[in-house]
């Protein structure tokens, strides 16, 4: 990756981080979502829930909620990517640099995904550590949590769902007239995409006790994530248009 792309991605994240709503998103994404998973674990342990039930609920929470933490952060930063720069009139100097369309997009992906992944990893680590502390405190067996198959699904979901959300928000941000419109349209589209996704995941997981996934279920879940990430990302790269950004 070219040095210029890294500079673009990291500098623009530093700029984005100075805005209030991005800080808010980081707080909601990392603390509230992670905190609610941990709170449910504590509550169930305090109520002496059976081990299998506690594991199943925690796994489902982790699979569904942990990937949402990076989505919330990347959603706000990605929404701002083009229309926000256009509103602040910084898009023109940026597009005047020698960077190609692809390089600008790569930089923008770094800006949106870098904080998302940092929050995702820190949230995941917090939940795992919390599990072991709760297991020790409440006398549950120190079962390897999460199971590698589930950990794999969580990590891949975190990455791919974030990529999907960022790509969808890029498509929207490039086309709308202001940031407010980007949030409104983005909220509807993201809900439209993620609610069915969450429903499918929940359906799959609610059929049995979720302590580990077999290979087929793992591949199926990752396949859905992959499809949801690849299609909008291809659309972003194929439809990036300087003319539209400048003249709209």
């Amino acid at each position, binding site marked *: 990756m070219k040095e210029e792309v890294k*500079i673009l991605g990291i500098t623009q994240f530093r700029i984005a981080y100075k805005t209030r709503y991005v800080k808010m998103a980081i707080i909601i994404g990392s603390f509230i979502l992670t905190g609610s998973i941990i709170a449910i674990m504590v509550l169930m342990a305090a109520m002496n829930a059976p081990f299998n039930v506690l594991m199943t609920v925690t796994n489902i929470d982790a699979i569904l909620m942990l990937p949402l933490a990076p989505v919330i952060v990347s959603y706000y930063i990605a929404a701002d990517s083009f229309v926000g720069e256009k509103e602040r009139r910084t898009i023109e100097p940026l597009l*005047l*640099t*020698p960077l190609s369309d692809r390089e600008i997009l790569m930089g923008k992906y770094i800006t949106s995904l870098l904080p998302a992944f940092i929050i995702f990893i820190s949230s995941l680590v917090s939940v795992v550590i919390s599990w072991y502390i709760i297991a020790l405190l409440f006398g549950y067996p120190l079962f390897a949590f999460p199971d590698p198959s589930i950990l794999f699904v969580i990590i891949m979901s975190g990455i791919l769902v974030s990529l999907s959300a960022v790509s969808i928000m890029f498509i929207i941000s490039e086309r709308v007239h202001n940031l407010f419109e980007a949030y409104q349209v983005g909220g509807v589209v993201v809900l439209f995409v993620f609610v069915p996704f969450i429903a499918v995941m929940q359906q799959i997981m609610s059929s049995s006790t979720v302590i580990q996934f077999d290979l087929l279920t793992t591949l199926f879940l990752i396949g859905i994530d992959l499809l949801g990430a690849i299609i909008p990302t291809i659309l972003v790269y194929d439809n990036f248009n*300087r003319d539209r950004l400048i003249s709209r």
Partner: protein
Amino acid sequence: MKKLGIAIKVENLTKQFETTLALDHISFEVDEGEVFGYLGPNGAGKSTTIRLLSTLLTPTDGTASILGIDIHDEPGEIRRIIGVLPEEAAHTHYGTISVYENLKFFGKLYGLSNEEADDRIGYLLEFLDLTEYEDSRVETLSTGNRQKLAIARALIHKPKVLFLDEPTASLDPIMARKVRNLILDLSEKENLTFFISSHNLPEIQRICSSIGILNKGRILKLGKINDIKESLNAMIQYSIRIQNDPSQFIAVLDSLDFVENPRVVHGTLVVDVKNPDENNPLLVDALVSSGAKIIELREEEITLEDLYIKTLEGQK
């Protein structure tokens, strides 16, 4: 001055925005090292031309090249060799980071090493009297200082061709003169080419050797300022100071078919005369025979403003 060749070549460049034809098959050339003034009323298509030449927009038709590089074939290379001061440039910065960070960011995006970027930033900040603001957040700067920062950003990578949209807007007179001198200096010594869009006609007259006048997407006049003035010389403006009341001679002047638009401005008769070499004696005779006591008859030099207004009025 060393001239190397053509810096900007535009052929039939056209831009259609949905229902608006912003540029209609314009063609012109700008020599290397030249300072070219691009004039026209608001909405004439000046900024669209700059955006097309700087590869921000794609032409609907026609071609253009900068220093022989086609804007369509190698847009990245074009952006590397040009510097652009966009419209209302003072408001195009990242406000929450410092002056230094803004310039370093762009310097790095243009491929400068840390050392090169720091040297260049130091030089530009000193030249533009911005050194004391190096660590200030851009949002705390005055509009004039932000404009200076935009000029520094346009120059950060030592471009060979510069497109400047209203370069001295929001600058105080001293800094405006400094920037004008910088433009002339860079053009003379480093053979940089300048394409300047501006409404500041006296400024354009001071620094530009050639101009293009644009209106409604079409070029109305193009060439060296002196050549264009000469092309308008068939009708020259004269001021006639008269001892008696000048307004009583308006009717006399109206009756002369080689005189146009006689009027009194600040107590002086002002007229436009066709073929003055032939007609001025007749004009003086007509005034004297109707009792005018002429003190002075002076040819007014055509300013760029006159030329601009005449050109646009001619189109109407």
